[in-house]
């Protein structure tokens, strides 16, 4: 079981109380269990990536964090039960679940006016300034905006909220690469501060790798990896094995092996770099390579990869 206390991250904010603490978190829909008693802790000041296949339980986990669904087990966000006190919690937590969820009947200026009226931590002037330089006009009807403009508008709304935790569930789904890059760059440059935490899920994991401090992989309702990025870089290595060393490399027990363009690529967990270097080219796997490797790995008896 991953334990945040053992993580190597030393950001000052980590000394503060964790923002999210989940213990034995379970969720069942009818007879089907979606989350199998997961544990995790999210400290302040971090950027977490939550990655998994469709149906792995990512959105259910986020819904539990956001108080959108009741769960078994224990979960505390900013010290409170999110399902029991969602409305109070949303003063300090912002989220985008789907950029298409903005009310389409509103005009942009109406949206800002309404959010300013019902959200005590929303700054209308900041939202307006965030939209400057974009194609989104205050007089535009939200229903007439393109998907890229909707993403910019929704991002402006959440970035204008003084929140301690920002949760983004597939925020760039359906957007082209230009918008996606711009979206994430704005987040990092204009929103993140040492006392803010960002939790993000996406399938385009390579695009957010640069901004992550921690990564969580989910498979079939279980966390199979929960570690700081620095630890991931130390723990997992990728070897492009020389043809004559393939068997020797296999003997070292890779967690994953595949052939790419005629080359044999292996991923190792917890192996010394010095042991691998004589066998081929060693590098750190990209998050997407690591994800593919760990998704295909047989689970341990507890359902969590060692």
């Amino acid at each position, binding site marked *: 079981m991953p334990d945040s206390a053992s993580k190597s991250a030393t950001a000052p904010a980590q000394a503060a109380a964790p923002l999210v603490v989940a213990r034995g978190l379970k969720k069942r829909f009818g007879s089907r269990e979606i989350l199998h008693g997961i544990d995790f802790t999210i400290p302040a000041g971090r950027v977490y990536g939550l990655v998994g296949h469709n149906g792995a339980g990512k959105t259910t986990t986020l819904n539990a964090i956001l108080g959108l669904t009741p769960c078994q087990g224990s979960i505390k966000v900013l010290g409170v039960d999110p399902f029991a006190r969602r409305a109070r919690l949303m003063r300090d937590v912002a989220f985008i679940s*789907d950029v298409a969820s903005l*009310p*389409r009947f509103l005009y942009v200026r109406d949206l800002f006016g*309404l959010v300013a*009226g*019902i959200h*005590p931590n929303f700054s209308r002037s900041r939202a307006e300034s965030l939209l400057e330089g974009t194609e989104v006009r205050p007089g535009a009807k939200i229903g007439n905006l393109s998907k890229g403009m909707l993403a910019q508008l929704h991002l402006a709304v959440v970035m204008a909220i003084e929140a301690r935790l920002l949760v983004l569930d597939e925020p760039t789904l359906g957007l082209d690469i230009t918008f996606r890059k711009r979206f994430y760059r704005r987040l990092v440059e204009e929103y993140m501060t040492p006392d803010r935490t960002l939790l993000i899920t996406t399938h385009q994991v390579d695009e957010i790798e640069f901004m992550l401090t921690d990564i969580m992989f989910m498979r079939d309702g279980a966390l199979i990896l929960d570690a700081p990025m620095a630890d991931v870089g130390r723990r997992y290595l990728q070897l492009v094995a020389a043809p004559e060393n393939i068997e020797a490399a296999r003997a070292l027990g890779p967690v994953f092996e595949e052939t790419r363009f005629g080359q044999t690529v292996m991923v190792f967990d917890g192996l010394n770099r010095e042991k691998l270097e004589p066998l081929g080219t060693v590098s750190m796997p990209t998050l997407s390579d690591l994800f593919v490797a760990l998704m295909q790995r047989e689970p341990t008896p507890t359902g969590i990869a060692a």
Partner: protein
Amino acid sequence: MSAFLTLLRREFIEHRGAFFYAPLILIAILTLLIVLAFVSGHTQFSFYGSGAAGYRLFDTAYFAIGFLWWAYLFLVLFFYFADAFNSDWRNNSMLFWKSMPQSDFRILLSKLVAGLTILPVMVFLAFLLTGIVAGAASLVAPLVLPVLGAPDPSGTLTAWANISVVAFSYLVLALLWYAPFFAWVGALSTAFGRWSVPLALVIPVLFSLFENVVDFQSGPGGGRLLGFLRQRLSFTFDTRDLQAAVFSNSPIDVGALVEKLVAGVNWPSLLGGIVFAIVVIYAASEYRRRVLKSFA
């Protein structure tokens, strides 16, 4: 409180088509028709009795307009409650509203309150405006029909004010009386979307049939439940009082009419209905709090 007012404003913005633009368009059409009728001379008045003045004609017309607007309001409110309580799901904005620091109960309560206050007020303002148009027409009518006598602007204005007060009193009491019915439709809409339209009627009817089968012929005709609903769904003026007021030769006695209106209300039943409305809205909010879904 300002957050709640903002939620009410949101309801108005979302439904301004039915409660603001549509009434304005109807008034514009009505005005156009009246003007066309006078300009083209295509007017015909059937007049009985004697001693009537122009504002007597206005009284009758304004009351009739009031009932038409009430019918419009009741119908539009029914569909408002059948629509507004699931519109966040239908237009895929549920998660956006859930990201705001407002509880589901507060949001649904704002929909109920908006449906019983600002939205009817918009239609009432349309009624007042229509009264002004009708008043203007009644002042012009004696030119076409001299038997109506000389135009009486002050009498017409007094009649407009009196009838407006009576209509407003009726509106307030009727909305409070029908609040549980609207809340019932809204609560069903939260769970079943547009199916709330038939379900609002089908569910009580099924319960009533069940009652009649189980408790055969021991209650009043149609059963206790239907009997109660029949009584609970009727809120009307005593038409004899109204006719007497409209067709008398003296100006309408607003105080007497409102007093009779208030005296005719079954207050325990009205208060019980309001409690029922709040309870079903709370139950609907718990459903909305617990169930995440999407349906068109």
